[in-house]
């Protein structure tokens, strides 16, 4: 089935077009919308954005590949980003990362077989005063410890099993 924005995102897309004197400027915000709606930017999703903005696909691809948050591969329902930069490193980020890899059984850049979790080591999330920090989908979890990570994973699992129609691989979009 061909990709299409939901009515809400279609309205957001139309509002974006009105913001700029040049429609190319709407490209990154539109890719962000598509990333959220479709879970990641498949080739099909990028083609869709290109057609909506009347831009060459190559132009869209050139921009999309520059930005780390515009995902080119599917991620888990809960995408866990662990800040590995200096302030978090000094407060034990490596222990958190090792623990997450061990309990989830995956490395950075991988997705659990059930599609529930994916893991990524990232650069500074601007939360250095409450290091170490991890981001799960949209939410920051600060001053993290191994114990807090365990509680968090448990509550995410519970959340997933309770949610009706939970779909794996949607980047946290229910």
């Amino acid at each position, binding site marked *: 089935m061909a990709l299409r924005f939901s009515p809400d995102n279609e309205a957001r897309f139309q509002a974006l077009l009105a913001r700029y004197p*040049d429609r190319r400027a709407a490209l990154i915000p539109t890719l962000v919308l598509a990333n959220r709606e479709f879970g990641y930017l498949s080739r099909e999703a990028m083609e869709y954005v290109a057609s909506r903005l009347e831009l060459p696909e190559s132009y869209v691809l*050139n921009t999309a590949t520059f*930005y780390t*948050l515009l995902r080119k591969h599917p991620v888990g329902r809960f995408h866990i980003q662990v800040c590995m930069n200096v*302030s978090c490193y000094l*407060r034990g980020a490596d222990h958190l990362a090792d623990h997450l890899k061990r309990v989830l059984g995956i490395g950075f850049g991988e997705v659990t077989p059930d599609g529930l979790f994916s893991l990524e080591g990232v*650069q*500074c999330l601007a939360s*250095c005063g409450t290091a170490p920090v991890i981001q799960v989908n949209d939410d920051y979890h600060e001053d993290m410890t191994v114990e807090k990570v365990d509680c968090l994973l448990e509550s995410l699992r519970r959340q997933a099993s309770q949610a009706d129609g939970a779909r794996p691989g949607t980047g946290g979009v229910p």
Partner: protein
Amino acid sequence: MSENADRSAPPTPPTGPFLLRCRPGEAILRLDDHLTRGGFEPVRKALAMDPDAVTDEVKRASLRGRGGAGFPAGVKWGFLPKDNPKPRYLVVNADEGEPGTFKDRYFLERDPFPLLEGVIIASYAIRANVSYIYIRGEFVKQIRVVEDAIRQLYDRGFLGRNVLGTGYSLDVYVHPGAGAYVCGEESALLESIEGKPGRPRNRPPFPAQVGLFGCPTIINNVETMACVPLVLRHGADAFLKMGVPGDGGPKIYCVSGHVKRPGLYEAPMGTNLKRIIFEFAGGTLDDRPILGVIPGGSSTPVLTADELDVAMDFNSMRAKGSMLGSAATVVFTEGTCPVAVLLRISRFYAHESCGQCTPCREGTGWLERVVESIEHGNGRPGDCDLLLSAAGQIQGNTICALGDAAAMPVQSFVTKFRADFERHIAEGRCPHAHG
């Protein structure tokens, strides 16, 4: 403000906090809550002035850019060409990403109205009718907060057509980033808004002449914007007196790493670094001796324990051989491996290089690989000099400051902790407990 008004100003200096007014756990997200605290008085004041008089007031206040470069905001505004018929833009840099920095997030998350007051005043001063606030893509919640605050301002006539009945019109939009540190560089940020990869532009022309969509553009940091209403509220003289000569105002200091109370602290520009670490942040964990302090974000040259008696303002830090940067102070104590700390930093710049300039694209990768080999016990004699040489070949040879940002920590770490680097190489392993 007229000279008479200055003379009749009250002799007692105003008391803060001026920037970090929210108490722990508090947020001021409703316009009414902001208005009952005297909000938008500075905007009303500015809109009653001539735009150039507003710029002059900000110039006299010596408000230097809080993003890291420290360029005087009013002087920057004055660079806009007088005879260019094109529209003008104000762009706010909220792409906070210099490791160690987490101050702009405070405004974006908990106190957006002072930022938006600054946006209105600055846009009016430079005669812009459209402003974009570029917020890093990870800040999903913060983007919602700022968009909601903007909506409230439209609803009440503070934005849109005919702002507060003055005939001035202003539209403000949030533009999301999508994960690229280099977009915090102002010309890369403009490229990014235009829908392109964030590759910095050659200058000249400077953005004030040819900026967003080819139009005259001013780019300012979030904290700088939040300082602008303070200049209008208290007057340029009072603002200047809050800091040091030539560098006015209060400043937010970000403290992280091995301290008892990491966090944000507001104090006058020029506050002593020791006071920030030991008084505000409570000293080091377990009172361990300090090994090093990165004073102003990961790109700024590291200081050793005997170099901390310094005023944190732009000129004093330069005189000390480092930089105020974004005032993001990262403390690490004895027992920490300086090679491992540098490796995090070098890996970051290698990851974030946009790849446009050969010295940076190739050089940052070399720096990372050599530091990594030293840390992992594969260092070779001469590697310290190799690092210094490679860093020296990047510095000054790139379009933007990211190359310098990658070079400076390498030069300062290798120079100041050279014995530790050489020990790694001689022993063929990391001699510290973590390794």
